[in-house]
């Protein structure tokens, strides 16, 4: 199973698009405020060999962050967190319903087989003078046999 970097990225962004809740899905870290409505930004956090592998090959642990963003001035303001929660729930449902990304990976790893669990902490980020409420959905996944190991 080789690592298809672009195919994995496109599969994740496709799942985000198909939730139907995002005004825009972008595959980069935005340097300017993305605009009103829900945004999903796809970023790769880490790319590590994992012990969950064979004797002479390394599997790869990828951890993606799917950052769900909403400007905090979105009205009504007390709906901001429920809107983010709903978007994260729908996105998680799509990902957990396609654990291998149609055969691209061994598995999306919600429970941390390789040491990192799926998580979704909430917070704030200011971009370009605009404060956003964010939910960072961290998506770990294991890809088989990416690197051969030879002494």
């Amino acid at each position, binding site marked *: 199973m080789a690592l298809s970097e672009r195919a994995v990225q496109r599969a994740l962004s496709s799942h985000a698009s198909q939730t139907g809740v995002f005004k825009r899905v972008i595959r980069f870290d935005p340097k300017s405020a993305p605009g009103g409505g829900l945004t999903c930004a796809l970023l790769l956090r880490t790319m590590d060999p994992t*012990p*969950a*592998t*064979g*004797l*002479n*090959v390394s599997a790869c642990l990828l951890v993606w962050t799917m950052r769900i963003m909403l400007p905090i001035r979105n009205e009504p303001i007390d709906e901001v967190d429920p809107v983010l929660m709903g978007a994260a729930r729908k996105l998680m449902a799509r990902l957990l319903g396609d654990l291998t990304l149609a055969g691209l990976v061994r*598995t999306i*790893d*919600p*429970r*941390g*087989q390789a040491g990192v*669990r799926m998580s979704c902490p909430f917070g704030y980020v200011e971009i370009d003078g605009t404060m956003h409420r964010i939910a960072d959905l961290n998506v770990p996944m294991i890809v088989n*046999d990416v690197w051969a*190991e*030879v*002494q």
Partner: protein
Amino acid sequence: MSIGSGLGQNFFIDGYDLSGTTGSASRISSSQATLDKTAINQRGMARLPGLNDGGLDFQSWFDPATGFSQDALETLPTTDRVASWLFGVTLGDPTANLVAKQIGYDPTRAQDGSLSLTSSLLANQHGLDFGRNLTADGTDGIASQSGAGSLTGYNDSAAAATNFGLSMFVHLLSFTGTSITVTLQDSDDDGTDPYATVTGATTGALTTAQGLRVRTSATENVKEWLRVTTTGTFSAATFVVSYVRYLSTRWT
């Protein structure tokens, strides 16, 4: 001093290459029992060597594809299995080999969702033998041929020929053709003295993937240099060969 690591190793059972699906080995054991012969006038324990034994306990990752862990281990045969663990992929690197009964194939489904399987091999009638690899090429320890021929010779630093025979452990991993015969040849010097077949060190004609141990007579003369030679009619064959040179009658 050149301490090595456990990375880049290989594991074969009965012609199955389980290197990519085996996660770890918790025990690779070559043991010798002792017999207590302490007399009443001795102040310390007195022991004689007893029976030798061996075993290999390992953990695999679940892989249902043909030719991998589930396929190789689920049948739990009552017949002996031949296993070889390669500690490196350079010609002459150490190997651990045994003929054993497989004891169990036990899945563990952890709370984190991982699915691993533990198996044990217990040696049958002969302990685990540490030997040397004769098919490694610096990449993966496996020889690949498109026709009959000889591989590079190896000298295991034997100062002189020995007279206690040898064992060869062969894993034929894949094969296309009529048959292949794997034989060990020896030479005094890998040059002037031509290679000749070590009597008894031949698999006979093989036609399917499998693992086997071949043992010469316990008094067979084995020269310093050894190499693998194949004969037969085939267009493709991949295989692994390890050998064990016996240095006394104790382990034959």
